[in-house]
């Protein structure tokens, strides 16, 4: 068996007395697309933020490339080749596109002086590659002037700046037009074709069913189901299952099976 890129073991997270996650296991293998599903408030985003190092879990282990890590943080997560496109896109809207793309990863020479020319040319290349941002904008344009889809493009451009092993997309198609959504799917397939992994979080089950190879359904802080695409007949079956989870309050994974 190939080594997991990352594995979260028995992760719990409580905010005060509220349990957001109660013992979740999740792993991602090289070159697979994992679809993460669940209702609002199920704990998907919390889980993703733990993966990205933004939130510290209350308990549980994080294993990266077979080694248990401590003091997991956003900087370590990115250094380990995990890039996250957050639901809120994590942009600084008063700054230029270049500064956003290189946020936390500035191209600097000795003593920290920026290599502005190289940053601009890299940003231009990425913007072309994504094919997202309309041509009236240059890398020096302010992100606050961009539309929602273009902002998403900036966030995705940042994720592919370095050759990441795993790209996490938290509801990347929310509030996007049809063509923009198609571009996101095209992007996911490209990443998949280059042998890298994706965790795709979405509410639109048809979208997730089309794109993912393995599904993990989270319900009220627990993994309610985990299945390969080959074990599910159609998107309809997945939808029926999700409805079943939503109806049956307090159901556990064991009872379902």
């Amino acid at each position, binding site marked *: 068996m190939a080594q997991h890129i990352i594995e979260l073991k028995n992760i719990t997270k409580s905010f005060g007395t509220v349990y957001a996650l109660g013992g979740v296991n999740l792993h991602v293998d090289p070159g697979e697309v994992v679809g993460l599903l669940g209702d609002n408030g199920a704990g998907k985003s919390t889980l993703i933020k733990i993966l990205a190092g933004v939130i510290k879990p209350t308990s549980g282990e994080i294993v990266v490339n077979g080694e248990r890590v401590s003091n997991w943080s*956003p*900087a370590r997560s990115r250094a380990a080749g995990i890039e996250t496109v957050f639901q809120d896109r994590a942009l*600084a809207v*008063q*700054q230029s596109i270049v500064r956003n793309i290189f*946020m936390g990863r500035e191209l600097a020479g000795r003593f920290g002086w920026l290599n502005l020319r190289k940053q601009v040319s890299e940003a231009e290349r990425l913007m072309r590659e994504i094919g997202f941002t309309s041509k009236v904008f240059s890398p020096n344009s*302010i*992100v606050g002037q961009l539309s929602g889809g273009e902002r998403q493009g900036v966030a995705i451009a940042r994720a592919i700046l370095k050759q990441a092993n795993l790209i996490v997309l938290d509801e990347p198609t929310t509030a996007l037009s049809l063509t923009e959504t198609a571009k996101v799917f095209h992007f996911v397939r490209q990443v998949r074709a280059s042998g890298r992994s994706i965790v795709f979080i979405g509410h639109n089950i048809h979208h997730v069913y089309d794109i993912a190879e393995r599904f993990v359904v989270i319900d009220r802080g627990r993994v309610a189901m985990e299945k390969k695409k080959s074990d599910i007949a159609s998107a309809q079956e997945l939808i029926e299952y999700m409805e079943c989870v939503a109806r049956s309050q307090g159901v556990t994974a064991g009872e379902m099976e």
Partner: protein
Amino acid sequence: MTEVSRTTATMALHPAERPLRKFLFSNRAALGSLAVFAVMLLVFFVANPRVFSNWGLYAAVLTTLPVALFMVAPLVFVVTSGEIDLSFPAMMGFASLAFAYVVQAGFDPFLGIAAALVVGSLLGFGVGALVVYGGLSSLVATLGMNFMLRGLILIVTNSKSIAVPQLRDSLAFKITSTQIWGIPLQIVWAIAFVVFCALLYNRHRFGAQVHVVGDNPDSANEMGINVNLVRVKVFAFMGVGAALAGVFSTMINFTWWPTSGDGYLLPVIASVFVGGTPPWGGIGTVVGAAVGALTVSFIQTGVLGVGLSGFYVQFFYGLIIILSLLGHRWNQARYR
């Protein structure tokens, strides 16, 4: 075919990319404050051409302005990071007290400058750590620190000034505070410092991170920037600026005063905002703030120069500040 060629034509000629437009657009806050200064100077000049064609008047401003500039430029970093510092006057007093002690004890003034820089950066670091790791409002916490540090100064020195006449013959004085071809050397050092700060602000990793942290600290954190450390560094840098200001102010008349720095609180803060740095964080301009400092320090001289009584000074301070804010409000949009 026509579609394609039209797109390329738009691309090549897009107005935002023309060099002059681009320069005007990306520096509009700084240019706005320069315009304010130019108009103000013109008004003064028309009102009294004889006084305002006298170089001595400008030389006087250029001797005292540098002290403010050493604090105005770092304060732009603080405001851009989304914080404010009101403790720099006391940090200036404290750091220059260290300078005066070292010089008075008979050591070389350069050693005194080093001592001031160490004290200033440590104080800034301490204030920053208190605000950031204590999770306090920087407005209130630095106000408290300003009182407390000033109180310590008064307790330690018994509120007595320290004369350091030995500075007059020192090399440190010669290269920092004498005149060359009628130009006070202080302003040369201050301009060098402002240029350094502007580069640090726009072309250094530190400046880039200060912008992002002030713009959206959550995003900065999610992208792996140590938000708290950046904030603490900003306050430490403010301490360094205050220390330099303290040294230069002590050099002016070879005396350290227990009130050293007090008079700079409001003019320095006003300079930053008159210069076009908005109070909400994320953006700003170092060069604009330097021009703002020039404007603010010229108001008093100007008002007296045109022959008005000193009672008018405060009114004009207020007038210039309000007019500048209105101008910047119209000049720059806020993106959310």
